[in-house]
Every structure is written in structure tokens, then in C-alpha cells.
């Protein structure tokens, strides 16, 4: 059996990143994700990697841009206001077709907001927080083990499609401790070669340029089509959802990330009361697991859908879109850093859903 360790979500993300090949981290401190840079600051050194506490979030994402352009497995992490600052860099990285990993341990907003858990960055993460036509693979783990599993393979996926992978967590996920199994260290020698990386190796077959500037409209349009093909391919391969007691469900609860866990307990409580409840939890929020949600929309047994989120209602828009508005969708949310208990969701269903 693999070694088991009790770890915070933030620490587990950092360790799994290193085991998955990360050798460069740049970031700027912000609660509630500070355990990631703290861990990286000593751990990267042990494996011959590089840690930089940057002068700002903007600097950090551009350092990641540089390190990724040079072919390294690079990452940054932050929380909501810090991720806003990184948006320009994220767009550039997408324009330059570079793989990297970005972690957002979301806190409450808008503005400086607060430091408690929230899911108010959904639109920013999945609809494009930066400018231009770009997409990222956005994954929303619900446990420390899922954080490990996703981080471990994050660069493999980022490099396959040459785009950023974003881990969309929240303060709860960063701070919670659970026992995890850690996979073995990947050997960087086995990573695929990057014929596009500006490694300074000398004269190659092609001149290598990392850039996102295309002045000629036809050239940029061709680039947009090339990127779109990649995004379509990613959407086809990577969409993922967890389903729980859906088969005979009359009321389907849906939530992503840690809230998906809270709601799973609500489903059990509702079942104990004789109410046929089920859960669908997207694991990737971009690409959205369209087929799984379309199926829920078409299920004869389903009478109503309830989205539960730590925001004023963002995720609900995709739920309506991808169930094609075939079922009524109700919304239950908390915000400001407050978290619902499973019982709160049960009370909402008993009161508001027929």
C-alpha cells in the first residue's frame, strides 16, 4: 500500500505537484492558500526545483509564463483577489500555448472581500477571467485525496493540450485535513519532449518563439481555430462528473467542490426521510460534463433540480444551460464566507421543493 499521511488540502496539493513533476513555483502570499507557498519554499529545494516569492501576483504569473516557455513544469497559486491580478498573464499563456498549473483557493468577494470559503469565482474560472478567446481545463476537487490525484496528473494534461490547468478549490478545501495516499515521484526523464520550448539548446530544426502577438487578422484567426480544435478535443476527453443515487432520483441536488460533499450528506438525510434525492457533482467545471447533465434533464423520474453553491448564483446558469431547462432549477446559496450545513439544504428542500 502507498504511504498514508494526514495532510491539509494545501499541503497535499504542493506535495502532489512535486511528485507530478513541478520544479518551479512562483507566488505571492494570500490567505487561505499560504500553506502551498510555505510548503513549496522548502520542499522544491529538496528536489532541485526553484521557489520564488514574487514581488506581486502579476510578477508571479509572468515568471510561470517564462518557466513554462522554457519547458519547465511550473505553477502558481493564489486566492480570489490574487487570481484576478493574474488574469492578464493567464490569457498570454493561453495565447502562447503554454502548459502550467494555477491553483485558486477561493475566498469571499467581491473586492478584498473576506478570507473564508466561497465559490464566487466560478464565472471567472470557467467563462474566461482574462481577455480573448481562450479556455482552460478547470477541475474542482472535493477532498484532499482528489486534490492529490488531480495535481499528480495536472502537467500531463496541461502538456497534452498545451494550456493551463486550473484547480478551483476554496478555503475549506485548503484547510481541511484528511488521510491521503501519495503516489510515487514521477521521473522527469520520462516526460515527453517539448520541441516548442525555448531551452537554449542550440540550433534546432525550427526557430522557437514564445509569443501571443498575431497582428495579421488571418493569422490570428487561424490561431483561434487551432486553439478551438484543442479546446474541443479537451472537452471530448476530459469532462467528468460524480453521480450518487441518481437512478431513481426525483429531486436532484447538484454542487461542485467541497459543497458537493456537504450536499452528499443532505442526499442521505433526505433518503432517510423517504425522499428520493440524488446528487450530480461535476469534477471538471470546464469542460462542463454536458452529457451527464443532459441525461439528468431527460430523466423521467426527475421532478426538480436544486443547485447549491457558496455564491449568489453562478453555477446555476450552467446547470440550466446543460439540462437544457427541461426541469425546474431552484437555487440555494450562502455567501460572504458562511457555509451551509447538510441540514440547511435538507430544510430548503423540504420547504421549497414539492
Amino acid at each position, binding site marked *: 500500500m502507498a504511504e*498514508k499521511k*494526514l495532510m491539509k488540502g494545501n499541503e497535499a496539493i504542493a506535495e502532489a505537484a512535486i511528485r507530478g513533476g513541478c520544479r518551479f513555483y512562483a507566488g505571492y502570499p494570500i490567505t487561505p492558500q499560504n500553506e502551498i507557498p510555505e510548503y513549496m519554499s522548502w520542499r522544491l529545494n529538496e528536489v532541485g526545483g526553484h521557489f520564488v516569492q514574487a514581488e506581486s501576483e502579476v510578477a508571479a504569473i509572468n515568471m510561470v509564463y517564462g518557466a513554462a516557455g522554457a519547458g519547465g513544469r511550473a505553477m502558481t497559486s493564489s486566492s480570489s483577489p490574487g487570481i484576478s491580478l493574474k488574469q492578464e498573464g493567464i490569457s498570454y499563456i493561453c495565447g502562447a500555448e503554454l502548459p502550467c498549473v494555477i491553483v485558486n483557493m477561493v475566498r469571499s468577494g467581491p473586492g478584498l472581500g473576506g478570507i473564508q470559503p466561497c465559490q464566487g469565482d466560478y464565472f471567472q474560472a470557467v467563462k474566461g477571467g482574462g481577455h480573448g478567446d481562450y479556455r482552460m481545463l478547470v477541475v474542482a476537487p472535493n477532498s484532499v485525496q482528489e486534490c492529490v490525484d488531480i495535481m499528480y496528473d495536472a502537467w500531463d494534461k496541461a502538456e497534452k493540450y498545451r494550456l493551463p490547468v486550473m484547480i478551483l478549490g476554496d478555503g475549506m478545501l485548503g484547510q481541511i485535513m484528511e488521510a491521503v495516499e501519495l503516489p510515487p515521484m514521477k521521473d522527469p526523464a520520462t516526460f515527453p519532449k517539448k520541441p516548442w520550448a525555448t531551452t537554449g539548446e542550440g540550433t534546432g530544426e525550427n526557430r522557437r518563439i514564445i509569443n501571443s502577438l498575431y497582428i495579421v487578422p488571418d493569422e490570428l484567426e487561424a490561431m483561434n481555430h487551432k486553439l478551438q480544435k484543442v479546446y474541443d478535443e479537451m472537452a471530448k476527453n476530459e469532462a467528468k462528473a460524480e453521480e450518487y443515487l441518481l437512478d431513481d432520483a426525483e429531486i436532484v441536488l447538484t454542487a461542485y467542490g467541497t459543497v458537493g460533499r456537504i450536499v452528499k450528506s443532505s442526499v442521505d438525510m433526505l433518503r432517510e426521510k423517504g425522499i428520493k434525492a440524488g446528487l450530480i457533482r461535476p469534477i471538471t467545471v470546464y469542460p462542463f460534463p454536458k452529457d451527464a447533465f443532459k441525461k439528468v434533464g431527460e430523466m423521467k423520474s426527475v421532478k426538480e433540480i436544486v443547485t447549491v453553491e457558496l455564491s449568489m448564483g453562478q453555477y446555476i446558469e450552467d446547470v440550466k444551460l446543460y439540462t437544457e431547462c427541461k426541469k425546474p432549477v431552484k437555487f440555494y446559496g450562502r455567501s460572504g464566507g458562511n457555509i451551509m*450545513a447538510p441540514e440547511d439544504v435538507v430544510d430548503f428542500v423540504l420547504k421549497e421543493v414539492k
Partner: protein
Amino acid sequence: MERLIVAGFGGQGVLSLGQMIAYASMFENKNVTWLPSYGPEMRGGTANCSVVVDEAPIASPIIATPDTLIAMNKPSLDKFIASVKKGGLVLVNSSLISDKVNRDDVKTIYVNANEIAHKIGNDKASNLVVLGAYIKHSGLFTKDEMLKTIEKVFAAKAKFIESNKAAFLAGYEL
């Protein structure tokens, strides 16, 4: 399933008390979630953590009605006492809380943890005294399982092992 809330002043070791349960759960192959309050807490401020232990995989780490409350100070008792499940267990640090618990539908154990910790010469271990009493009355783990956990968790700080075990046992044998 055991759902536990540990609450008190920052500096009383409430988070590490919860972590001892989390470590014991891992060592005994049970599932566990440990979720701390975080943010502007500091020494003297309030801190708490929610711990869920189960044989089955744990869904919600958020606890609305704890099976057990460990209250290390008065504000914590006031904040959480009403939420404890009927028939639940409440451990009160009577060194700092002079009030009696005003509920007769829960089992309440009073532990003068600070005095006991002081008597055994380890003022910082009042949390382990309460841990001992908690384990005794909940039966969540055996005495030996917890002693083994203390040894493993403090392996890197070996000089604290014996005094921490003594604090745990003082609470356990009350």
C-alpha cells in the same frame, strides 16, 4: 460516526487536540476529516475545529449537531452548547468555566484540566488531559491506541512524549 467540535482560546491546543483524534483515526484505518476555523484567530482569540470519524467515507465535514462538544472556555460553551445532539457528550474545562451545563439531555463531564496539567508539571497539556477524559467516556479509541498515537505524533519531539502521556492518562483515569 463520531462528530466532534473542539473549541476554546487560541493557544489552548484545541486544534492539536482535534488533530490527535485525526491521527488516531488514520493509524486505526478509519476515515477522518479535520476542519479548523481559520483567519483572524490568535493566542487569546477563539479557535475551533470540527472532526468527523467514520468507518465509511465521510461526506460532509461540516457539523451542525455534534455528537460531542469539548469546550475549553466559557465563550465556546455558550456558542456551541445548544447545538449538541440529544444524548450527546459534553466535556467542560471546569478550570476556566464555573457554570454548570444547563441541559439535562446530554452527558456532561467536568474536567479541571488546567489544575491537573499544572499538578503533573505540564501546564501546556490541559488539552491532553481533556483528550484523556474524552476517550474514556466516548470509547472512540482504546487507551493503548491513544498512547501509541501520542508516541507517533511526538516522535520528533521525544522529550514531550512522557509528560503528554502522563497528561492523557491523568484525564483518562479521572
